[in-house]
């Protein structure tokens, strides 16, 4: 008797899946329902989280005042290479704001979502803000780290993300390379002058050894810049973090100046994060106009002010708050175009499969 009663109860209970299957069906149909023009997806790199929280609110307010329309901006963050990969695989970004131009070009080449000459579409090579690479060390700088040379010393643990997935890591790598070149050549202009070809080849060999020695001191490669920052600051691993300038300042701001401090090397690289409209996705979502305005507003006085506030170097410094500008340390900056012949060449030589990075990096121990 008891058994039969129980089985009846159970039949009722097991019918629940049928109800849920209906829910599944309704869930599937509900998902693609995009309200046209009211939502933007900005796929960005790791350290811009805080910047775009403030910028998105400012733009939504501006857009509402200008057109009377509401706009919600959704954010996705991660290592720039990884994020580009996701857009290539179908993450439907209306705009991408990534750590370096090459990752954006990769989207254009592999997924054909916008023209490959995208970089001429917005002022300043589509870079509304720039940054550079600095060192973050423990308070009081116990290991006495002052310049790139100190990073290759035995026993120094260096934290940097993986250049395969992170844009910041590629800037770190190239900055170290440029430093070594400059040390050998004295003047980086020689890189592009044919009469110094032999010297440059030798300097490049030295730079390769220099960066290899640096990578030997790296105990762990996180996939994005923010992961590396938390590894260094939260988990207390490593003696020095190679970080975006904005990321280093933010870490000090968020976590208190009594745990870490910034060290500015003698030479660094001008890091140029770039932005673009993803034409095909925006067209599909009917968001072309608002997405374009979203990017252009980055160059407006208000956009530039917010950018500088979040420790990015504004492309139009005259719009920014002078107090914000005063925080940026003076440092000699080299550009990727002048020293490495542009991103395409740098990416192919150093970071693609079978490139220099693969040859010199062995996961340690």
């Amino acid at each position, binding site marked *: 008797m008891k*058994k*039969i009663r*129980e*089985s009846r109860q*159970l*039949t009722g209970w*097991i019918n*629940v*899946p049928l109800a*849920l*299957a209906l*829910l*599944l069906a309704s*869930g*599937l149909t509900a*998902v*693609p329902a995009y309200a046209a023009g009211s939502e933007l*997806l900005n*796929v960005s790199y*790791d350290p811009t*989280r*805080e910047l775009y929280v403030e910028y998105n609110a400012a733009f939504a307010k501006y857009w509402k005042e200008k057109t009377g329309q509401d706009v919600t901006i*959704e*954010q*996705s*963050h*991660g290592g720039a290479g990884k994020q580009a990969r*996701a857009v*290539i*695989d*179908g*993450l*439907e970004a209306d705009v991408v704001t990534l750590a370096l131009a090459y990752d954006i070009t990769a989207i254009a080449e*592999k*997924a054909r979502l916008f023209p490959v000459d995208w970089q001429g579409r917005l002022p300043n090579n589509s870079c509304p803000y720039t940054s550079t690479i600095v060192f973050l060390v423990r308070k009081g700088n116990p290991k006495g780290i002052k310049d790139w040379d100190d990073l290759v010393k035995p026993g120094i643990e260096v934290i940097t993300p993986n250049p395969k997935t992170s844009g910041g890591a590629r800037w770190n790598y190239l900055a170290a390379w440029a430093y070594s070149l400059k040390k050998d050549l004295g003047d980086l202009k020689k890189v592009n002058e044919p009469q110094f070809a032999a010297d440059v080849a030798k300097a490049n060999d030295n730079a390769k050894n220099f960066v290899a020695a640096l990578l030997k001191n790296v105990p762990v490669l996180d996939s994005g810049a*923010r*992961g590396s920052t*938390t590894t260094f600051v939260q988990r207390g691993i490593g003696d020095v973090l190679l970080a975006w300038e904005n990321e280093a300042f933010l870490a000090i701001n*968020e*976590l208190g100046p009594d745990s870490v401090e910034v060290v500015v090397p003698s030479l660094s690289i001008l890091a140029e994060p770039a932005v673009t409209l993803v034409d095909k996705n925006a067209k*599909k979502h009917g968001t072309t106009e608002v997405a374009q305005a979203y990017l252009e507003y980055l160059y407006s006085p208000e956009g530039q002010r917010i950018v500088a506030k979040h420790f990015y170097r504004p492309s139009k410094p005259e719009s920014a708050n002078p107090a914000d500008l005063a925080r940026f340390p003076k440092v000699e900056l080299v550009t990727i175009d002048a020293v490495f012949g542009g991103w395409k060449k740098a990416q192919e030589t150093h970071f693609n499969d079978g490139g220099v990075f693969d040859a010199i990096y062995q996961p340690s121990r």
Partner: protein
Amino acid sequence: MASLDTIYPAVPIKVKAATNQEPLWVRVILISISLTFIGLFLFLPLAAIMTEALRKGIGAYLESFQDEDALAAIKLTLIAAAISVPANLVFGAAAAWALAKFDFRGRNVLVTLIDLPFAVSPVIAGLVFVLLFGLQGWLGPWLSEHDIKIIFAVPGIVLCTIFVTFPFVARELIPLMQEQGNEEEMAALVLGASGWKTFWRVTVPNVKWALLYGVILCNARAMGEFGAVSVVSGHIRGKTNTMPLHVEVLYNEYNFVAAFAVASLLAMLALVTLALKSLVEWRMNRTDVETIPPGKE
């Protein structure tokens, strides 16, 4: 030693103690090892989560759940579990039934395939879906043309969750069903019951506790899955972040109180799962004793 004492108890009171006749120091060491282990690997992390979550007081803790993105993450996790658990319940029961009650060609292959999600790294599972449904994948271009989103949207997250939780229900049911054989079903059929009726009245009541056990484990995994879901999520805040992914996002944004607050919810889920699991285990043992006829042990 022990058996001698049991057979010829010197003093009747000693009979009860006879089961643990190990020297005192052995018992002390064994017990302290297990307590230390439990303390280090269970209670310490749990305590750490709770202290971090409550670092800025109960107000800040509760505020973490007012956040729209956190609510969206909780909702998405519940949706993913609400779809994948019943789906796996149906698939799992069907698969276990077919495997345990029938003998057919390819049966062993099917048994192996059911275990596949356990053997494959969740990240690979996620990548498989990217290969299938990604824009550069097999079905991607077609899906994009018809404006159907699978990966980087809710369906992809649900699919991944179903995939990684697939073995739980089937794995619980197969051994039990095999052990029970199909004599009772045969008897029911001989007595004139239909196949459907036999299934509901004979098969299901026999395995219901194992079924429930599988469902509970399946649910815990569905809500806690990180790797596979991370690959197909696209990490759109407030839209495609499940609770575990949202914890990572918050942590990366230096928002430690909120990160640990959401983590504490997941920890509580684990505790509830544990409690339910013990309850079901206890019921399972009891019904076993009740239903097994004398002599069939």
